[in-house]
């Protein structure tokens, strides 16, 4: 069972709130409109908190309890962040217990598990927490022995008095340690990287693995409460649709069906609001599903009823053929392209369809509404957003809504949109005092999600006599995630163009990036690696095409295009986004870009002679302030049968905190990248999603997965600020595959998924 951390300061633990010591270095400065721009964690709601009294408790028996304040969706943060604390505080891992925090951002700091930020933003605060706790234990021991603190040292769950050899266990020191002042600032003594026992070693398995293997881990869908009832919802088939007529007579006659509850359609922009519809509540999930089938409903489809993916693709194709507003314009790309002779000018267009996240655990939430407030058990990436959404819908204050965070059965961005939590809260409100578990079926998940955008990217280049581009024009058209929050938003937002469209650190003098208009007719949401998916697919396939035109080896060509090692201020590329990070701390380092590309190529044996029908393809990307590259090896048989033989994945994410989980993310990123490249596609007809389950929304299966995935961890400089890990492996996979297919067959892939070719 997952332990839930409210409240932590119970009997037997240190009194966490003792003395009112709530030190909160780096707390957010929201509301400070004036002053210099904030970066990184400081710009996030809740900022960071590094108070050991908030995160660590030590029991009299020596058990060290560490709070995991961010939700676990499979990347390993529930292990990695407490592991950082345990390392710095010299706790023995087998004496550590992890408890999961609920939604409480003011207490713990930012809790939005999204954007590959958990280790990036909390490495330093968690080191502070652990180091401060260690020093407090040392100070308590020194006081007990009446010796100078310089004579004592914490070593693996004990404090040792070096001159006398005396020892005291952490449990014996717990109460006294708590009374010590919390060291901060220059008084904090962090370990040197050479002193780390767990960080960077990759020897600690994910905390929940044994329970997962025994079927005892608690995911959101596993919440159980006395008297619990179950609900499923019939939602409008078209986004923005409304209920016109409902007859629930037949549904209510079915055995087990208890109640039918209308959920109002959303007003304004969709944001994280429920789509609206009709919930059927029953005494088990199956009865609720049968009840839903028995509902007689007429919908008013509304403004998006005409959305059709075939027609929309033509709209996007037309949009990228006309000039559009520039968001980056270095030199004079338009003139250079206009003057270039035909044989040195080249253009291509790339299409990526909508995608559904399809986490194996569908969206699910359990809620109980009483006179005093609402209690929720769920699996969400952003618990405070779930809390805020439910509170707003119920007319409560956020602090009246308690959110218990259970394990997420996958997230990939879907579960950072807590519409399903608000649905559960609204249905529970109609059944006061009764806990309601609201489950999305797989059909619901595929048909009513927040979809990855659909995109057309047009690239055009004029080549110099040496084959490298003199001018580069990228025109992108894709419905924007901004449309989720601002009705009618039609052009890519800066955080979207800032994902591998604007910020191409190439040695090209004339660069122009334009965004064409594209209306949204579905809920557009972020999906693991977001706008990097289309932008990296387009640009990396295009670079491979340019290398072919220039009759050069793609690796050589890519390295020449990146140019010599140098550090580039993303601001000079018209990118003010840079994943929210400071351009000084996180410049784009082309030396690191080159190194990952070379590592992936070396791993794959780039340049070796291949049998007929085989090919190697490469791609690289800077994303989430990390550097990643992929080389794919394919074999294409006589009947066009495609087999992915091997994938080489390289990453430089700066310090490697949990290398074992980094490799896991790279392996998983390779599989997810191949899924979207080969198989997955969401399409709309008459405003409705055509697909409904894994038979028509295909994802990779065991037999399609490459037998060989080699992972290469490059760099690892512990003095660098950390980069992201969860998302960066995904973007280069699809273009590397497409480029490998070209190398094997001479056929260009410019449209995904590849199974349609």
């Amino acid at each position: 069972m997952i332990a839930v951390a409210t409240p932590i300061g119970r009997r037997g633990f240190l009194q966490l709130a003792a003395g009112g010591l709530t030190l909160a270095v780096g707390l957010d400065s929201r509301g400070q409109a004036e002053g210099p721009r904030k970066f990184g964690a400081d710009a996030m709601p809740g900022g960071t908190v590094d108070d050991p009294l908030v995160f660590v408790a030590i029991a009299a028996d020596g058990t060290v309890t560490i709070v995991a304040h961010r939700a676990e969706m499979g990347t390993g943060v529930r292990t990695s962040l407490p592991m950082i604390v345990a390392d710095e505080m010299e706790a023995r891992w087998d004496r550590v217990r992890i408890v999961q925090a609920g939604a409480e951002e003011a207490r713990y700091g930012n809790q939005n598990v999204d954007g590959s930020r958990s280790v990036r933003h909390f490495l330093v605060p968690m080191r502070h927490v652990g180091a401060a706790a260690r020093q407090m234990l040392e100070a308590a021991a020194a006081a007990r022995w009446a010796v100078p603190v310089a004579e004592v040292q914490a070593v693996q769950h004990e404090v040792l008095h070096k001159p006398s050899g005396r020892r005291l266990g952490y449990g014996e020191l717990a109460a006294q340690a708590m009374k010590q002042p919390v060291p901060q600032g220059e008084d904090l003594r962090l370990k040197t990287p050479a002193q780390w026992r767990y960080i960077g070693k990759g020897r600690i398995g994910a905390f929940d693995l044994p329970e997962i293997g025994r079927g005892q881990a608690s995911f959101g869908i596993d919440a159980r409460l006395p008297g619990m009832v179950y609900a499923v919802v019939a939602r409008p088939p078209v986004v923005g649709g409304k209920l016109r007529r409902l007859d629930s007579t037949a549904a209510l006659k079915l055995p087990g069906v208890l109640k039918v509850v209308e959920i109002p359609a959303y007003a304004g922009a969709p944001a994280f609001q429920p789509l609206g519809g009709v919930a059927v509540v029953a005494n088990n999930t199956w009865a609720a599903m049968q009840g839903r089938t028995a509902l007689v409903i007429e919908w008013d489809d509304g403004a998006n009823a005409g959305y059709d993916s075939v027609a929309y693709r033509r709209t996007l194709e037309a949009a990228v053929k006309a000039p559009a507003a520039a968001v980056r314009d270095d030199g004079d790309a338009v003139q250079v392209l206009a003057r270039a002779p035909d044989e040195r000018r080249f253009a291509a267009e790339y299409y990526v369809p909508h995608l559904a996240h399809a986490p194996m655990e569908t969206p699910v939430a359990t809620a109980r509404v009483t006179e005093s407030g609402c209690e929720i058990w769920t699996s969400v990436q952003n618990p405070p957003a779930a809390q805020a959404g439910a509170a707003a819908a119920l007319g409560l204050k956020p602090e009246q809504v308690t959110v218990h965070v259970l394990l997420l059965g996958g997230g990939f961005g879907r579960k950072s949109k807590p519409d399903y939590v608000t649905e559960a809260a609204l249905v529970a409100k109609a059944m006061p005092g009764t806990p309601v578990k609201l489950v999305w079926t797989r059909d619901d998940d595929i048909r009513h999600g927040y979809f990855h955008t659909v995109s057309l990217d047009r690239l055009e280049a004029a080549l110099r006599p040496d084959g490298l581009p003199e001018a580069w024009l990228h025109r992108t058209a894709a419905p924007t995630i901004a449309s989720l929050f601002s009705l009618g938003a039609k052009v890519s937002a800066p955080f979207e163009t800032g994902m591998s469209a604007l910020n191409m650190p190439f040695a090209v003098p004339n660069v122009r990036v334009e965004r064409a208009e594209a209306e949204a007719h579905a809920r557009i949401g972020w999906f693991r690696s977001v706008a990097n998916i289309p932008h990296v697919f387009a640009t990396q396939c295009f670079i491979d095409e340019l290398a072919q035109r220039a009759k050069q080896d793609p690796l050589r060509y890519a390295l020449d295009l990146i140019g010599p090692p140098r550090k580039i201020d993303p601001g000079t590329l018209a990118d003010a986004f840079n994943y929210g990070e400071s351009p000084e701390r996180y410049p784009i380092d082309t030396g690191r870009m080159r190194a990952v590309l070379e590592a992936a190529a070396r791993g794959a044996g780039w340049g070796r002679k291949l049998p007929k029908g085989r090919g190697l393809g490469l791609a690289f990307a800077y994303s989430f302030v990390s550097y990643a590259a992929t080389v794919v090896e394919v074999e294409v048989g006589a009947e066009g049968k495609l087999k992915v033989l091997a994938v080489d994945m390289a990453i430089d994410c700066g310090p490697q905190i949990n290398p074992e989980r980094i490799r896991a993310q790279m392996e998983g990123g390779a599989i997810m990248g191949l899924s979207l490249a080969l198989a997955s596609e969401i399409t709309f007809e008459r405003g409705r999603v055509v697909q409904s389950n894994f038979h028509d929304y295909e994802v990779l299966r065991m037999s399609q997965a490459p037998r060989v995935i080699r992972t290469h961890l490059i760099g690892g400089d512990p003095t660098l600020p950390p980069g992201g890990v969860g998302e960066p492996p995904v973007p280069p996979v699809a273009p590397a595959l497409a480029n490998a297919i070209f190398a094997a067959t001479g056929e260009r892939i410019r449209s995904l998924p590849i199974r349609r070719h």
Partner: protein
Amino acid sequence: MTTVQINGQARSVSASEDTPLLWVLRDELGMTGTKFGCGMALCGACTVHVDGAAVRSCVTPAAAVAGRAVNTIEQMQHDRVGRVVQQAWVELNVAQCGYCQAGQIMTAVALLKRTPKPSERQIDDAMNGNICRCGTYPRIRAAIQLSARRLAGEKA
């Protein structure tokens, strides 16, 4: 009222006869180790053993297993093959989110009981019905092969 033999115990079930075994296990009996993934036998998250064979409980009516031996993931720590497989899963850090892994383990145990030394192709065929969206397939394959070596008494 149907009586079902689950993990060696006779359990009487009050859900309607057409209710899939999955929801009987999860909602009525409170055995939440078996997971819901698709409801159409497309993803394998709900896999259990019925008389030793891997079966998708989301499309198997409770009435259809009356009088037959059902084993779930909760039973695997008491099963010779199940224990070996669970151990391999932990050692190789197979899981990422972990949600599909109960179903993966159930399918793998059924495979190894039927085919103690599965070929790559046999692993593909057996495991193809179990989706992992996190992409742990390479480690699942490795864990099955490690389990097979251990069950054969080889040092691994």
